[in-house]
């Protein structure tokens, strides 16, 4: 009995190890499915695709730890992409257009945050509304057209290589991981995030500035979405209103798979990074195996349900 609980407890502490195991099994399976999979070139190329999801997942981890959620990240990405592309098309110099895009992302996140904190609304409702609003603005403002006549240097953000093999955006992602990890695990702000997720009311009465923390988190993910949007736009070299459609599923799946409880209070950056890697591997492997994209979405949807179910199952077993 006590041996069993001890094993379970160790399982909890080594959740990252379990995820690492899953990742390795997945890598083996995928390399059996496609001979192209386990090549250095392909593995590095995969990182092109997960950096965007990964950046947003970092912000989403902190938000989910506080018990919140942001469904609007995919739409926000489209909005920023359109903001960058069309302000450039309207003769704004590209560096300024990129800054403008980041500001739009930040402002969109702040907009979510203001609604959530000052009206005491559930993040789910607000971001469901802004999911439609941002998407609609992206479509409407772009008149469903695309901009793709960017100067050559714009490709730097999404298509550059270091030493001929390492995609440039990988460095941005690693830097972001380190910064967000430091914030979450080494600062007072990070402790506030967990405190709010465990018991918001108790946190409030203990002097945690709940509103300010939440405002910072939703603005922060807006900025991360802005960065992801610039990389995305540069990678596909096109600014369109339907960029990032459905990316919120990848992002939320990655975070939940990484062990963050959807009820708030628990979650780690390490877990999220592993979750992002697993989903990227899965997506890339399925593409190489010739599985159509709608099926990938099916797999992701089921994976999300299984991951949450297992999370809550193990959490209840521990209690």
């Amino acid at each position, binding site marked *: 009995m006590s041996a069993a609980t001890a094993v379970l407890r160790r399982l909890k502490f080594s959740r990252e190890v379990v995820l690492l195991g899953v990742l390795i099994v997945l890598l083996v399976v995928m390399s059996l499915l496609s001979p192209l999979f386990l090549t250095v070139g392909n593995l590095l190329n995969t990182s092109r695709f997960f950096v965007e999801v990964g950046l947003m997942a970092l912000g989403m981890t902190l938000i989910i730890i506080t018990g919140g959620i942001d469904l609007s990240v995919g739409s926000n990405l489209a909005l920023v992409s359109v903001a960058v592309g069309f302000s450039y098309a309207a003769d704004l110099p590209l560096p300024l257009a990129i800054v403008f895009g980041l500001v739009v992302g930040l402002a969109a996140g702040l907009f979510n945050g203001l609604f959530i904190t000052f009206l005491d609304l559930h993040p789910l*409702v607000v971001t469901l509304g*802004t999911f439609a*609003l941002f998407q609609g603005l992206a479509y409407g403002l772009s008149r469903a057209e695309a901009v793709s006549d960017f100067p050559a240097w714009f490709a730097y953000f999404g298509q550059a290589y270091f030493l001929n093999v390492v995609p440039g955006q990988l460095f941005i992602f690693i830097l972001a991981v380190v910064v967000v990890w430091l914030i979450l695990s080494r600062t007072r702000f990070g402790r506030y995030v967990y405190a709010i997720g465990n018991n918001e009311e108790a946190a409030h009465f203990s002097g945690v500035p709940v509103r300010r923390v939440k405002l910072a988190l939703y603005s922060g993910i807006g900025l991360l979405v802005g960065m992801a949007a610039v990389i995305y736009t540069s990678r596909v070299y096109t600014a369109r209103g339907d960029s990032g459609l459905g990316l919120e599923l990848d992002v939320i799946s990655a975070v939940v798979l990484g062990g963050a409880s959807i009820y708030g209070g628990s979650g780690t950056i390490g877990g999220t990074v592993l979750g992002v890697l697993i989903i990227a591997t899965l997506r890339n492997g399925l593409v190489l195996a010739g599985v*159509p994209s709608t099926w990938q979405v099916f797999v992701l949807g*089921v994976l*999300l*349900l299984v991951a949450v*179910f297992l999370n809550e199952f193990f959490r209840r077993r521990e209690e």
Partner: protein
Amino acid sequence: MSEAQAPIPAESSANGTALRRWLVRPEAPALVFLAVLLVAFSLSSDKFLSGSNLESILVSVAVLGTIALAVNQVILCGEIDISTGSMMGLCAVAAGAVATSTGGLILPLLTGVAVGALAGAVNGLLVTLGRIPSIIVTLGMLYALRGVILLVTGGTWITGIPNETRVLGTGSVLGIEYPVFVLLFLFVVMELVSRHSTWGRNVFAVGGNRRASRLAGLPIDRVRFLSFVLVGVFVGIASIIYLGRAGSVQTNTGTGLELQVVAAVVIGGTSISGGRGSTLAALTGAVLIGVILNGLILLGVPGIWQDAVLGALILLAVTTDVLRRRLLGDKS
């Protein structure tokens, strides 16, 4: 002050409470908004207030309204269902496949309802037994069911739905087109169920205060489970209306519908946090969305702005809900 005037304050205060009682009704702001819009649109476009245009608005919201009536119950329970878009697609595919092979109305209808109820039951089981938040369950199902549609159809359209199956979308009864008739009929049914059945009352209790409901011995899991199944059943019925109207099913049928449904319910005045709302709110919200989308077309606003308008409306509705409750001093 004088004796002659004495009854007047009493009467005006009685009026005051009547007005107040009306104002605290969940669907009141939506109804006022609807009235204002009807006046504004009819002033700005001659075509708007014609009988045929008004009926075509009601026909156009029949699918949306039918599903909203059921999702209303889920939201009253304090849960949410955003899988209805894909669920509608799946029901339409299943019903369409049966219709093309057997014809008739009853068999496709039963198929659609059965498939919907099954999908709703999966939602309900994952929420109640799996104890996963409904937003995550139905987000996962939104994508999973879309995958199932591709599995069933192999990516091809279903065309050639026989006319006898399409009657719910094309025919009319007593001078009312069938989609409108079905919507109003289901509205009356839900109004009665909501007011007079045990389950209908329990839905309000569970959404209003789940802990108290559990302590009072209410079967909170069964109440919530049934509301998810009800969504499936209504989605099944709506899919037959859709089949009748469209005459074919594509793999992307119903995409984005889930958002309109949730928008209709919260715009109508049912509180997203559960426990407060009414059947009339869901219907009002659906009609309001129909009127707005129709009005935008008449005013010449391009269709690409639809999502933005919908999103702004959801935010406006939830904001109004919060502000109204604060003004009326209702803390719950």
